[in-house]
């Protein structure tokens, strides 16, 4: 055996005065960090396996535990940071591609935090959402350029299919397989209670979840897992996944060990068989080919379902979006480079793609310039962390937002970024039955509903402050935004003025 170059990242501090040796930590840790030593009558820990998911800390009845970053330090070097050195060690010992989970954790600028929202003073008074009606309902889909009405004022024009949402926030695509059945149930129930949608991701739709169809977006991706006619007809809309913010240009790969009986049934593949979704759809090489897939889906569902095309935010996103708007898609979903994932090559996650704020502003402006903005709705995701981010996104031109990481946090995720291991102690990113049952879908859906109810109220308060009582009037209303500490170029791309201007 060679030398182990890696020192554990965390230390487990156990207060012996508080520890009652109840061994809850031992039972709760799927990484098998904690052990009870009978001879010495003490709890011991193997920090090397700890991922800092905080499960033991949260479950310890006497608050005897805390996880801290180790202060063992390599010789300091501004260029060769400890993380960078350790990555080299890992690859040198395994020959493997570095694999990570959840969103890009690197210290890139967060533009949401450099944008400020307006409020009314004296003139154009603000509106109090506690006593005045505020509209946050949105319809996603193609809007007709003109409306014809009969003598009684009834609309007679044919309206393309729409997704109706009570609030401008949906749960983004997370497949059954990458997350657990109970996580899916929580999302489905919460979406139904809130009048919004969750998204199956490319993992098919479990039979038990067909009842939530009106609040489900079903996804079709390059691997076509679980895609069949009933599935396509089950949802409120169909999403074609072309790309994902966490791994633009890269496909998905659910390892065979995560494909048990139920995942196999839902994905319609054999148990234990790797589920590979390659980066490209091998039948799509152009906007015309994309159009072919969009219309095959529309034909299969009698033109009753809106089709969403999801792409990752990349350098040329505005031109790509323009093509998608002309391809017959009803909605474009853009996923920023901070978007989460169940597993992605670290180098891709941390270095590929662009911020959603800039991508959104560029796409909205391009579609307006080309006078096709009403032909397609825009949904953005890729690290929407709060209701303020939602308000800023809508003012930059989005119709609605997708949230993934925020939703998982509501379910108990502590962003330990170890989803790929399949040993999620919170019962979210795992298929191990003993772990899955730790997540109660009743409680999970309630927490998700709480989160979005609170956000929706905050959105109304911010809108009211601006003197706006309908989300439609906020959409693309960039005068409501000001930049802080941004360069001329950044302001130009965002299409906003600097604070004070």
């Amino acid at each position, binding site marked *: 055996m060679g030398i182990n170059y890696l020192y554990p990242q965390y230390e487990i501090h156990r207060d012996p005065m508080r520890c009652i040796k109840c061994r809850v930590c031992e039972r709760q840790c799927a990484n098998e960090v904690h052990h009870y030593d009978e001879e010495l009558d003490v709890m011991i820990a193997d920090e090397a396996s700890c991922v800092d998911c905080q499960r033991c800390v949260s479950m310890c009845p006497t608050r005897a535990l805390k996880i801290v970053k180790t202060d063992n330090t390599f010789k300091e070097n501004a260029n060769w940071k400890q993380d960078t050195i350790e*990555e080299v060690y*890992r*690859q040198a010992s*395994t*020959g*493997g*591609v*570095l*694999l*990570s989970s959840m969103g890009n954790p690197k210290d890139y600028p967060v533009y949401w935090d450099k944008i400020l929202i307006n409020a009314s003073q004296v003139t154009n008074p603000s509106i109090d959402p506690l006593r005045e009606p505020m509209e946050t309902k949105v319809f996603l889909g193609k809007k007709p350029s003109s409306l014809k009405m009969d003598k009684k004022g009834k609309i007679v024009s044919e309206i393309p299919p729409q997704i109706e949402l009570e609030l401008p926030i949906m749960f983004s695509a997370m497949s059954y397989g990458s997350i657990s059945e109970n996580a899916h149930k929580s999302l489905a129930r919460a979406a139904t209670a809130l009048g919004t949608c969750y998204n199956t991701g490319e993992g098919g739709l479990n039979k038990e979840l067909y009842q939530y169809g009106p609040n489900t977006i079903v996804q079709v991706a*390059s*691997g*076509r897992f679980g*895609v*069949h*006619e009933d599935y*396509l007809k089950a949802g409120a809309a169909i999403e074609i996944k072309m790309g994902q913010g966490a791994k633009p240009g890269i496909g998905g*790969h659910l*390892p*065979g*060990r995560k494909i048990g009986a139920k995942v*196999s049934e839902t994905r*319609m*593949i*054999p148990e*234990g*068989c*790797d*589920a*590979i979704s*390659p980066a490209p759809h*091998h*039948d799509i090489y152009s906007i015309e080919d994309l159009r*072919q897939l969009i*219309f*095959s889906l529309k*034909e*299969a*569902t*009698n033109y009753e379902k809106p089709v969403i095309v999801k792409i990752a935010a990349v350098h040329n996103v505005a031109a790509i979006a323009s093509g998608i708007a002309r391809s017959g898609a009803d909605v474009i979903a853009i996923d920023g480079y901070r978007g989460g994932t169940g*597993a992605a*090559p*670290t180098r891709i996650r941390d270095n590929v793609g662009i911020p959603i704020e800039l991508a959104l502003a560029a796409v909205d402006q391009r579609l307006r310039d080309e006078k096709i903005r009403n032909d397609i709705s825009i949904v953005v995701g890729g690290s929407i962390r709060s209701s303020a981010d939602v308000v800023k996104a809508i003012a930059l031109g989005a119709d609605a937002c997708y949230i993934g990481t925020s939703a998982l946090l509501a379910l108990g995720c502590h962003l330990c970024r*170890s989803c*790929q*291991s399949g040993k999620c102690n919170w019962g979210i990113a795992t298929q191990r039955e003993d772990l899955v049952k730790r997540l109660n879908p009743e409680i999970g859906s309630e927490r998700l509903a709480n989160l979005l109810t609170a956000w929706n109220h905050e959105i109304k308060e911010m809108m009211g402050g601006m003197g706006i009582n309908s989300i439609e009037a906020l959409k693309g209303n960039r005068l409501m935004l000001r930049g802080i500490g941004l360069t001329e170029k950044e302001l130009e791309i965002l299409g906003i003025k600097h604070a004070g201007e």
Partner: protein
Amino acid sequence: MRINATGKYYTDLNHEVKKTQDREVVIDHCLGQRYIGTGVTGKNIIIHGTPGNALGAYLKGTDLTVFGNVQDAVGDTMDSGKIIVHGSGGDTVGYGMRGGAIYIKGHAGYRVGIHMKAYQDHQPVIVVGGSTGSFLGEYQAGGTIIVLGLDRKKGMPTGSYLGTGMHGGEMYIRSCEMPRATDQVTVTPCTKEDLEKITDKLEYFCTNFDVSMEEILSRPFWKLVPSAYNPYNSLYTAY
């Protein structure tokens, strides 16, 4: 029901097919209309002419017979039913196909049977009488692909990058020489038992296209299976 497709836009044609109560539908003078058979259950559709792309996409419980050639993406994500083509097919025949069968008398293009899967009693089959282009069975995860190369006097009837990324299912190739595949595929001469497994499919081909079994069996068959069912397990290291 008999439909004359001359000058008909595909949405109108498909609407007529979906609307009729008749189980038997004959389409004459078909010329490029897309998605025929998509979203239609329990029918037998006979097409004279050349249907457009994505014929029988997501096909479920309907049979399609084409007297003519077909274009790209035939049987995309097909679930069940049969597609019988008395001519040649284009690219990506049976993309992501999970069940049912596609029989093509002539040739087929690039990327035939890619992402083909199998699941319980859903065991998809593609049989091509002529030759195919490159990337045959790319990422194949299940099901059976058979290429007969009946047109060829020598050489293999498949193109380059045969079975790239294959991790399930089987391919059977009739060829005088051993097919050259990527390392991800293991090629062996077919045994008698192997051939018995596909006899019913070969017989079905013979009956439909009036080819003799004797001719088909006059050349050796090769069996291609994945070298690994979980090929990417060791590719990654967690961080």
